[in-house]
Structure formats: C-alpha cells, structure tokens
C-alpha cells in the first residue's frame, strides 16, 4: 500500500543550522491499517508525513503508494490519492467561500473541473445529507462563509472534505492539537468513525498518547529522524499510555547516556 524506502532529508544542508530530519526512514503500511506516529519535538514525525504529502522532495529514497512511484510527484498531484487534515484548523478550508463551495471543491478532487455549475440543487442536498451526521447544525448554513465557523467545526468539515472521495491514504497531522478538549474529543471520535466505516488507510501524527492508544492499530515512535519503536499486532493491543511514557523515558535516558559518554570522551581526548 504505502511503501517508504530509505528516505533521507536534511534541511539547511552544510550550514550551522543543518537539521537531519529524516535519516533513511523505511516504513511499510498495509491497506486498511491505521498507524499513529509519535515522538519528541523535532523527531521528524511531521517531516515524515510531509514527505508523503509531497511538501518537499526527499534527498534520497522512494515513496510508493498504491504501486505508483510518487517520489517525484508534485503536492497537488499526490492529493488525487491522498486526503489531508492539518494541525491548523483554518488551513484546510477557504474562509471567504461558503460551506457548500468548499465541499464542492473536494467533491471534484482528482477529477476535471469544467464549466458546469458547481453548487447545484442536487449537490446541495447531497452535502446537507452528509453533514447532518455531524450534528452541528451546519446543514442549514450551507451558504455561510466557512470563515464564520469555529475551529472545531472547520476541522470536522476538513475531515469530511479529505474523505469525501475515498482517498487511498488519509494523512492526519496532529489534527486535534489546536482544538479545545471538547472539540478535540469530538474530532477524534469522528476520525475513528470515518476511518472504520470507509475502511481507510490512515497515517496520523499525534502528541496525545491517549489518542495514539485509542485510535490506531499500530504505533510508530520516532526519535532524531529514525524509527525507534514499532508496536503492532497483539503487542499494540496490549500497549497502554504508561508503556509509551516508559518508551519515551528509555529514549531520554539513552540520550543522556550518549551525552555523558561524549563528555567523558571529550574530557579524555579533547
């Protein structure tokens, strides 16, 4: 399904601020699986997601989706296969346009956009039917600018837009991190419903350990541009939040050890 092979990405190469964001990361994701990526700040988890989305081209390695080599595809072309929800709840929708217009754009993802009228009566009915399930009363506000909605409402619509046409892969980039707890819980629940119902393949970056335990059936832990832990199958079903915290502790201790060894060596030979 999604095959990431040895991708390498260095930001600001050959400068003092050089960041080796991804160091030969390989990851294979099976069709219909829901994978969470967790890790410390700067571990490269968002970079991994962006590499799949096509925000940048990796320095080396390849990305295959659905048996297609998408490594050199531009971002907009990958969007024909990939649905995305961003951390910023305002990033996924056009604020000055109405709810119906925003959604109709996602209804043509990967299809030609001709000179037919975009928001017709039948399209409006279809949209109203589908967003009624959100129970946010948005079906009566189809002609309101989407910019007048709350972050939670906009994120719910972005999620619907990303999955309106079944994507081969759904990318969720900390999509509940910028929301208030109540909205975050609602979006989390909605995500689970949609992914389960549509049997989607999803890759989610999250900072919430609870979310990583609750939603997906596989957890990848990243650190310093590498994958350091991979909980899947039975192992994943037994994983609880404290186990993940313990894994983080182990990493922190190893870092500390690396640093103390480095200091020792420096003192000895420096």
């Amino acid at each position, binding site marked *: 399904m999604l095959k990431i092979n040895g991708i390498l990405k260095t930001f600001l190469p050959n400068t003092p601020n050089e960041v080796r964001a991804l160091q030969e990361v390989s990851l294979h994701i099976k069709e219909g699986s829901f994978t969470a990526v967790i890790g410390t700040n700067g571990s490269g988890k968002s970079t991994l997601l962006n590499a799949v989305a096509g925000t940048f081209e990796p320095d080396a390695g390849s990305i295959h989706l659905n048996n297609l080599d998408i490594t050199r595809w531009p971002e907009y072309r990958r969007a024909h296969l990939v649905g995305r929800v961003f951390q910023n709840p305002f990033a996924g929708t056009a604020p000055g346009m109405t709810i119906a217009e925003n959604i109709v754009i996602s209804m043509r993802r990967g299809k030609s956009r001709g000179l037919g009228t975009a928001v017709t009566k039948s399209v409006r009915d279809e949209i109203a039917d589908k967003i009624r399930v959100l129970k946010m009363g948005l079906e009566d506000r189809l002609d309101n600018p989407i910019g007048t909605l709350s972050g939670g409402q906009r994120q719910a619509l972005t999620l619907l*837009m990303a999955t309106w046409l079944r994507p081969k892969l759904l990318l969720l980039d900390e999509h509940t991190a910028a929301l208030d707890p109540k909205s975050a819980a609602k979006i989390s629940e909605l995500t689970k419903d949609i992914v389960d119902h549509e049997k989607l393949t999803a890759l989610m970056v999250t900072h919430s350990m609870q979310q990583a335990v609750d939603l997906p059936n596989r957890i990848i832990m990243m650190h310093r541009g590498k994958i350091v832990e991979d909980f899947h199958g039975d192992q994943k079903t037994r994983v609880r939040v404290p186990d993940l915290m313990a894994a983080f502790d182990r990493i922190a201790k190893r870092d500390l050890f690396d640093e103390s060894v480095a200091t020792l060596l420096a003192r000895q030979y420096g």
Partner: protein
Amino acid sequence: MSLVIGAFTMGLILSLLSLGMLISFRMIRFMDITVDGSITLGASLAAVLISAGWNPWLATLAAMGGGFLSGAVTGLLYARFKIPELLSGILVMTALYSVNLRIMGRSNIPLLDVPSVSGAMETFIAFMSGGAEKINTLGWMISSTDLATFLTTLFICILIGTLIFRFLLTHLGTALRAAGDNAQMVLAQGLNNKTMIVFSLALANGLVALSGALLAQYQGFADVQMGIGMMVWGLASIIIGEALVGKAGLGLAITGTILGTILFRLLIAIALRWGLNPNDLKLVTALFVFAALVAPSWIATLKKKISGGSRYAQN
C-alpha cells in the same frame, strides 16, 4: 448632457478593466501591474486591425486574445520562474511598451472614419428614428452616435458581467476563487494553484485589453501612453464599488465594480468641470486610493483613542 452620457460610456468601458482587476486583485489577490501595458495592447491591436479593414468585433476579440496572452506571460514569470509578483507585472508591462510601439509602428494611431463596434447600433437607431441627429432620450437630447456607443457598451458590459458571474460559479471558477482564498487548501484538494494563477491573470488581462480596444474606438485613437496609471484607476473603482454595495456575494461584487467605475468617472467629469487641472488627475486618484487604503485602520485607531483604550491594548 453629452458630458454625463460621456462619463457613463467611459465608466462602462473602464468597468471591464475594473472587472479584470476584480479577478486578479481581489479574487486571486495578485497585485498585477501588467494592466498598464495590456490595456494599451488591447487599444493598439484593435486600432491597427480596424485600420487594416478588419471587422471591429473581430478586431476587439483579437485584442482580447492579446491581453489574455500578456496576462499568461506575467503568470508564468511568477509561477514558473518564481519572480516576485510585482516584478513579473513590471517586466511584462515594460516589454509591452515596445510591443505596442511595434504593433502600431508609431506612438499614436487615429481611428477616424473607420467602423467601430457601435456601428450596428448606429444603423439600428438611424432606422428607428428616421435618421435624426439628436434623439430624445428620457427627456434629454443626445446625439445618435453617443447614444449608439453608450448602448453598445452597456450591452457588452452586461454580457461580460453576466458571463463572469456565471463563470465564477462553475467548478473552474470556484477553484479559481479558492486558489486566492487559501492556496494550501487548493493544493490539498488536488489543484495546481499556480495553473490557477496563470489562468486568472490571463483572463483578467483579456478583460483589460477588451476595455482598451473599446476605449480606442470610443476615443477615436490609440496612444502608446494611454495605459499609464490605469491600474490605480481600476483600484479606485473597485474600492468605490465596495463602499457602495459591500463585499457580500459575487453578484454584488461584480455589480459594485461596474457601478463604482461609473461613479468614479462621473466624479472625475465633475471635478474637471469644476476646474481640476487634468494634469493633476493621476495625483488626485493616487491620493484617493492611498486614503481609501489607510482610512479603515486610522478610523479604527481613532475610535479606540476616543473610547479611551490604551494604545498598547491593540496587540
């Protein structure tokens, strides 16, 4: 009375320029200065082709095509070669100055005693009125040529306004507006926002050139200098239009832009009548646009000061 009908006709012709800028400046938010060159391009193409014996409608269409191309070039400079938006426009505008001189072969082409797009309307009016020179229109005596030009321009304006309105509601038009509103969203929905920018600029400058072609036929000449400051005039018209009818809804935005341009031309006609030196016109327009751009924030600050709010509270 010919002053008022003249201002109306001029306003209608220039409203096509404003409509083009509504697409580039307001919809995709691109500060496109190509306008100053493409309006002249439209005028010079129309003038040369009509002088060469082309049907005026065909010549006007060809002028539109020229504007479409020049807008596409600006778009490509920006999207393909990553040149900053203002500079892309300036480069094309500068290049167009030479292109226009090449097309015309000299700096000015008079269009006297040649057919224009209002020819058909003139024949029609002459037929209806039995060939009278002055026609009683709503109680005013207006020369039949002026009336014919006005009616033809009104027809073109209504046609173009309706077409733009319909187009912006299509799938392609919706995508175009979204590209200006949120480029990130458009990318994530599988659209190449750069293509949308190139297309929008081409469309916008096509309209601008159409305006130029009609302007040359109305004024009776095309001049290589005629485009200078046109972009600011378009901006002023859009701003007046928004003040008139607000920004809510596409139909209102289009109507407002047309009305704004007409009102702007009327104001200019009145100001000139009252003794404003025509040489000062562009300075006054620039000052007006400046005032319209900064006034909203000044008024907001003033309100805060009056209501006793701290100046630091703004942050």
